[in-house]
Structure formats: C-alpha cells, structure tokens
C-alpha cells in the first residue's frame, strides 16, 4: 500500500505524493534560482584546437550533482554588438549559446556542467579552420538548480 497525499480533478490524479517532483530550495545561498551576468573573456586558439575557460562557478551545496535548467540571453542592446554577433541579438537561448564568426561558422559556445560541488558556466572557443581570438560579449544567464539528482544518479 502506498502512503501519502493524492489530489484528483474529476477523478484524474493531479498530485500524487508517491511521485517525485522537481523542487527548488528557496533558502540556499547562493540562490538556486537567479539571473546573473556572464562576461566571458576573449580566448586565443591555434587552428582546429578547442580552448575553454570557466566563466562562473556557483556552489550548489547539495550532496550530489543536481539537475539544472539554464538559459542564456544577451545583456545589452542590439546596436552595441559587433556585426558578427548580430545573428543572436534578441535571442533567448535555451542553455546553449553559439556565437558566429564573420564567415557564419559557429565557433563559440556557452554551456554549463555540474559536478558534486558547483554549477560551472563554461565558455568554449573552437575555430574550425584557422586560429584566432574570440570576441565574446556580455550575456545573462537564468538558472534553476533543482533539489533532484541530475547526472547519472538515482
């Protein structure tokens, strides 16, 4: 027999506490739900080689690598960015943010990785054919850290 609470709407269950739910702890510091500024610094690469840096580390203070949800979007006005970035102006990306070089080839990415200690925001630059220096610009990230395991853990 299952114990717990069940709520039904016209006999269809809408809440069963025998089921898990995605939960956020509102009292943990640093916050588990927040909008933060991300300012990647330029990265230098030689041809075909990928380089990356950790832009931001957010300690999650959970005893496991949690499930997270992150979104990146530009922090400034459209007209303030170099032309090669115009393609993503006004874009609200879902946790993956590619930048384009002038020839239209995607060379940069912002993404997150989570370990047992931190949510890590990583900026990667990977020129496909020729080396060079990346030209990143400020973006914002909206993130949720759930009190649910998220990486090969049950």
């Amino acid at each position, binding site marked *: 027999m299952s114990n717990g609470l069940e709520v039904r*709407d016209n006999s269809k269950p809408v809440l069963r506490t*025998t*089921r898990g739910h995605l*939960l*956020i702890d509102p009292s943990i510091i640093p916050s588990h739900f927040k909008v933060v500024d991300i300012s990647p610094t330029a990265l230098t690469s030689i041809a075909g080689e990928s380089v990356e840096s950790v832009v931001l580390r957010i300690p999650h203070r959970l005893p496991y690598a949690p499930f997270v949800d992150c979104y990146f979007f530009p922090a400034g006005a459209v007209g303030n960015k170099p032309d090669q970035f115009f393609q993503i102006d006004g874009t609200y*990306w879902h946790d993956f943010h590619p930048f384009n070089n002038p020839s239209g080839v995607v060379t940069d990415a912002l993404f*997150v990785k989570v370990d047992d200690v931190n949510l890590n925001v990583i900026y990667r630059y990977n020129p496909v054919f020729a080396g060079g220096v990346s030209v990143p610009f400020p973006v914002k990230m909206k993130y949720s850290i759930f009190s649910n395991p998220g990486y090969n853990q049950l």
Partner: protein
Amino acid sequence: MGKKGLIITQQGIDVEKAPDFKKVYDSNWPILEISHEMVVDVVVNIPAGANDVQFRYPVLKHGLGFKPATSYVPSDEYDAFGSGHSFHDAGFHSYDIEVDDQYVYVTSLFFAFELPILLTARGHLRVYDYDPRIEFKANPDPVGGDTRKSRFGVKVLKQGSVSLRDDEFSRFSLNSRAKALTIHQSGLVTVDPATNQATINHGLGYLPSYMLFNTDGRPSVAVRQFGDLNKLTFFGVQAAITGSFPYIVFKDPLLEQAK
C-alpha cells in the same frame, strides 16, 4: 477554474493572500510529476553494411498512453532539457531521445559510410506524467514582497525515505520549505509558414523557463524573444521548421525574473 482544490503555501504565508511565487502547490495548476526516472546506459555496436541504419532502441516502457514530457541529461554535455541539438557520445556520434505513447527510445540515423559504429548513450532520463499537448493557460498572478518563515508547513516523504527531519529535499515528494516547478501554460504551437516561426503568447511579463518538443517528443529548435517579455518565438536552428510543437511554459518559482 473553480475555488475547489488544495493550496499549499510556503511556510508562514497566508493561503488566502499568497501570490504564485509563494505557493508550493496549487491544484489549479498542473505540476510535473516524475513518473519514471532512470540512468540510460546503451552500448550498441552497429556493424558495417551497405545500407543506412535508422537506429531505434527502446530504453524504457513508460506505458502512459500519450507522448509525455521528458528531460535527459547526457553524461558528456550537461544541458538539462536540451536545446535543439542532438546529444553526442564520446565518439561524437549523435543521438536523440524520442518517445511514443508507450516507450522512450534512443534513436539516430547512421549512414552506411559511417559504419561500423560503437554507440554509447549514457545519461539521466526523467519521464513526466504530463502530456504537453494539453491546452492550458493559468492567469498570471501579481508578485511582490518577501517570504517569511515559520515552524508550520507540509512535508511528504518519497517512498523509501524515513526522516521528516532530513533537510535534503530530494528525499521529499512535497515540502513546503521548497518550491515545486509548476506549469503556467502548455499546448501545441503552430509555425507560421510566412515567417517559419511559432509564437507562444504567455503574458507573464518576464522570460520564463520552458520545454519545447518536436513531434517525436524530444526537445528541439531555439527561442527568440525580440524584446517582448510576454511571448516566446521559436525558430529552426539549422533549417526552417514547419508544423506544430508541444510546449510547456513554467512559472518562475521565486521573485527573480529575467528581463
């Protein structure tokens, strides 16, 4: 929507006056129940051959009778709900997570010239007991003020957990010290053939969290908001999109809105 139902607010918050972001649960809103959760660990050798291979490997029978919302965290690139790109294994072989009414699959298309391939698909899969095609929209609530705390609240442990004194929320199904992710809007959004874009008018006034699925149930495409905080506009990443897409838009769980 009537007045009947169950509302659980955060500790110390008056139920009658609580705005959205101070509620832990309100039965007027759908909530994502986790129906299945598993670690996917698929290692398959696809031998050489003269023909292309449409790979479709069932990893879970969910048996829900509809195409449910899912989330998948691959063991390499950690990207939560996904973002319109396929997942990749260590050999950079791409694969997708797809669903039908009964099963969750690992799928991919391999061309004959690529074979043989050893595909390794590892990650954390959640299946939610919610059909994103359900047309639903809640009324946005005004927000403001701080959350006070008190000794009173509701805690329901998950099966197998033993102590209500535990502070670790992953052991609870519901805990009024925590915030559950609730659904503001869901349904099918249709692409405008004139613009190759699809727009969801959510009316929240901020950039909300969302899940978007292609017709096979997996995450797809990308989002533009064009400065309008009351709508999300979707477009194809590498090609024009057509048809309809199931989606879910979530309420912000705390007073920290993206603008």
